[in-house]
């Protein structure tokens, strides 16, 4: 079976790409062999996976330089799931290739006007990638939602302006997501502390895989 590839991408730094990528990968690892490809020279995913006292549930590898979708699929065909953690630049070789290589692109966006504005290039980039990756699906994902904040509530309407589907599942702003990185684990490994977050990640996986 071909590897299912998800790219977590946004032009905006700090939108939650690495947080989403690592936790999604942990959730996916229950379903099959999973690898995170850290495409960001910052190497946050790699550092995250190296910080724990136990092995992270998914393999994490950092790659740089020039590569393309075909070689990526070839090199990691042993895995059932691949999650690409992209750098905060959609112009980069890594991001362009990631959109060409993936089945699904997830675009985390924070409930903030500046983050919205900075993410506006994504629909265009996705369209560009579809010229060579016709079946590419792309979804916006709301991250760091505050259910009681008016700006969080206003996000759904504002995101409609992107002309792109938005996942129903969202991530709330939770201490567990930060603690997970610090402890080098995923929210799935945090017991009851991580349970609400793990439910959110599961909901995203189910929505994406069922899409």
């Amino acid at each position, binding site marked *: 079976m071909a590897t299912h590839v998800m790219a977590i991408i946004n032009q905006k730094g700090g939108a939650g790409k690495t947080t989403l990528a690592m936790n999604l990968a942990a959730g996916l*690892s229950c379903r099959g062999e999973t690898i995170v490809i850290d495409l960001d020279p910052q190497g946050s995913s790699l550092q995250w996976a190296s910080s724990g006292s136990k092995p992270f549930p998914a393999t994490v590898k950092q790659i740089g330089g020039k590569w393309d979708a075909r070689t990526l699929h070839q090199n990691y065909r042993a895995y059932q799931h691949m999650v690409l953690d992209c750098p905060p630049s959609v*112009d980069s070789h890594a991001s362009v290739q990631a959109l060409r290589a993936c089945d699904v692109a997830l675009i985390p966006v924070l409930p903030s006007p500046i983050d919205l504005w900075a993410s506006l290039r994504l629909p265009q980039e996705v369209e560009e990638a579809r010229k060579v990756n016709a079946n590419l699906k792309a979804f916006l994902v709301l991250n760091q939602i505050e259910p*009681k904040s*008016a*700006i969080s509530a206003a996000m759904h309407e504002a995101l409609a302006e992107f002309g792109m589907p938005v996942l129903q599942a969202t991530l709330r702003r939770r*201490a567990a997501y930060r603690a997970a990185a610090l402890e080098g684990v995923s929210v*799935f490994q945090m017991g009851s502390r991580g349970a609400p977050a793990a439910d959110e990640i599961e909901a995203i996986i189910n929505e994406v895989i069922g899409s």
Partner: protein
Amino acid sequence: MTNLKDKLSASVRMAKAGQQSAEQPVSAPAAAAKTAPVKTGATKPAATKPVKTQSVTTKPTSVKQSAAAKSKPTSVNQDSGNELFPSRVWPD
């Protein structure tokens, strides 16, 4: 609230329009860079068998809503419309 919704959506429309007009003069080089030929050669990673050593097994179930339920007022805070992150922001 409605005002904030309208404002946010309008700001996105404005940013979009601004972006489109700003793109005109620079679109040629940007497009050229993006459509540069795809090289199929060098990749760093070697083909490897999965080296996963442990899978996630814990799947806690009954934890829904507890944090949200603990949070204070029942009605939406009137002032939150102007706050990016109201004071009660950490659900767990």
